[in-house]
């Protein structure tokens, strides 16, 4: 494995499978009286969050703590960043404190890459979401969840990702990782919410949700990211919801075994109906649980040894 996890494309098929298998073992920890391992004792993990997040930050914090790492949480609000400190100076401060890994979320695409390859810090950099670019650990936890529900393998499975692909780092990371793992991914969105260059992505795309649902093994609904929308991408919220929302009728079009996913936070009634989100085929809450196991696996494989795990091809 590479030293940093910046993109889902950093993972080969074998790397990804090792992460998922490791996470599978670490998930068993939840059933034990002591949910902690001594493996990263004495290592320091910094959560560097320049953008709001609840589940990702808490998930990384829980993962690092369960591996006995020391965790330093740094959020831009209330830090020197609000006084104008640059990313570089923040990084140098973290390096001076001896960070072994930096988990970074930033509103600018590419910030984790800059942090990893500018020579400011020596530790591993884990991308916890950068702008509209990538969110690789989310893709890993989604793949983990799918694999558990779809018979242990993602190979040849049909995954439909619906909604605001343009602003979604979750969609991009998922497409890359799921393609690596052999799934057939279909993006469904209004044309205005598909990015330029989507033809080059390892997936197909379409505009008709009703046509895609009957042949989906899993459907992933994306949040409409109003905070990133400066222009009108669709006429009205109601029209979007009618054409691309997963309501009870569309839920009925899915095969019996298909699961419903959402990376959260949800806009109930917008991209997903409350009754669908709460149905027994919705794995949205489980995705959060799985997030901790998957992030533990990534932290262990990157920091647990002298160097990241060697994965035989």
């Amino acid at each position, binding site marked *: 494995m590479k030293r940093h996890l910046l993109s889902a494309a950093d993972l080969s098929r074998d790397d990804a499978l*090792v992460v998922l*298998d*490791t996470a599978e*073992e*670490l998930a*068993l920890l939840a059933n*034990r*009286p*002591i949910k*902690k*391992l*001594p*493996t990263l004792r004495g290592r320091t993990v910094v959560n560097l969050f320049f953008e709001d997040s609840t589940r990702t930050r808490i998930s990384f914090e829980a993962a690092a703590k369960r591996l006995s790492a020391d965790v330093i949480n740094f959020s831009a609000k209330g830090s020197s960043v609000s006084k104008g400190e640059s990313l570089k100076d923040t990084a140098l401060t973290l390096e001076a404190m001896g960070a072994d890994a930096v988990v970074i979320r930033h509103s600018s695409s590419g910030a984790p890459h800059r942090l990893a390859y500018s020579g400011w810090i020596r530790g591993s950099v884990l991308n916890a979401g950068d702008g509209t670019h990538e969110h690789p650990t989310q893709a890993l936890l989604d793949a983990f969840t799918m694999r558990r529900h779809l018979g242990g393998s993602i190979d040849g499975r049909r995954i439909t990702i619906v909604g605001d692909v343009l602003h979604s780092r979750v969609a991009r990371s998922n497409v890359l990782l799921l393609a690596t793992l052999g799934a057939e991914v279909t993006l469904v969105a209004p044309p205005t919410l598909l990015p330029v260059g989507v033809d080059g992505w390892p997936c197909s795309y379409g505009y008709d949700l009703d046509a895609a649902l009957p042949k989906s093994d899993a459907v992933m609904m994306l949040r409409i990211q109003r905070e990133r929308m400066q222009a009108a991408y669709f006429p009205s919220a109601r029209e979007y919801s009618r054409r691309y929302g997963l309501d009870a009728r569309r839920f009925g079009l899915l095969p019996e075994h298909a699961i419903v996913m959402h990376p959260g936070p949800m806009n109930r009634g917008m991209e997903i109906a409350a009754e669908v989100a709460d149905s027994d085929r919705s794995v949205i809450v489980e995705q959060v649980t799985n997030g901790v196991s998957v992030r533990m696996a990534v932290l*262990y*494989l*990157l*920091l*647990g*040894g*002298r*160097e*990241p*795990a*060697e994965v035989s091809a």
Partner: protein
Amino acid sequence: MPASSQERLPAATPPTTGAPTAGPPTAGSLSAAGTVPTAADLPAAREVLEAADIARALTRIGHEIVERNKGADDLVLLGIPTRGVALARRLADGITAIESTQVPAGALDVTMYRDDLRLRPARSLRHTEVPAGGIDDKIVVLVDDVLFSGRTVRAALDALNDLGRPRAVQLAVLVDRGHRELPIRADFVGRNLPTSMSESVRVLLTEVDGTDAVRIAHTRRGDPA
């Protein structure tokens, strides 16, 4: 605490270097001026236990476990992956046949508890499977193929500590090759094999390797055994 029974001491005292029976043709010349043997000079792996020897050793260990614990009640056998797990299953089957009570067997991965994690790249984990009854107040017998430095067993004791509180922990190994680096000894030993540090002991089991055998081979210095 279990009464300290008269424990059978290892047949041979743990060897230091180049025990007579284990040395290669060039034994003794490995020190000071000796030329470093190349792979071509070394004899091929030599078989020290055959399938029948392994079967007999496991049968005896099974009986010893039952005798020591006055029956098979509350026994839980936990194998250390990979080959310890297969051995634990065989021992459990053996004891079940002797005592006609089902003895649970499981697996205990100790990777996350090892003290040498930072000396090598991160390793992938093996499967841990604790039998349904758990280990609280049970007599846990740890099972491994080779007892060497004792560091794996130390890691296993730490791992057990996080899983529960057994009434007692005992250790069964197929081969004790000496060279302990920690104050750890086995309660049940299939065979004491005096070895030198430049040798490696390989246990092969049908479940994993397709055949049953124990072999000794030479390694280059510094190779992990």
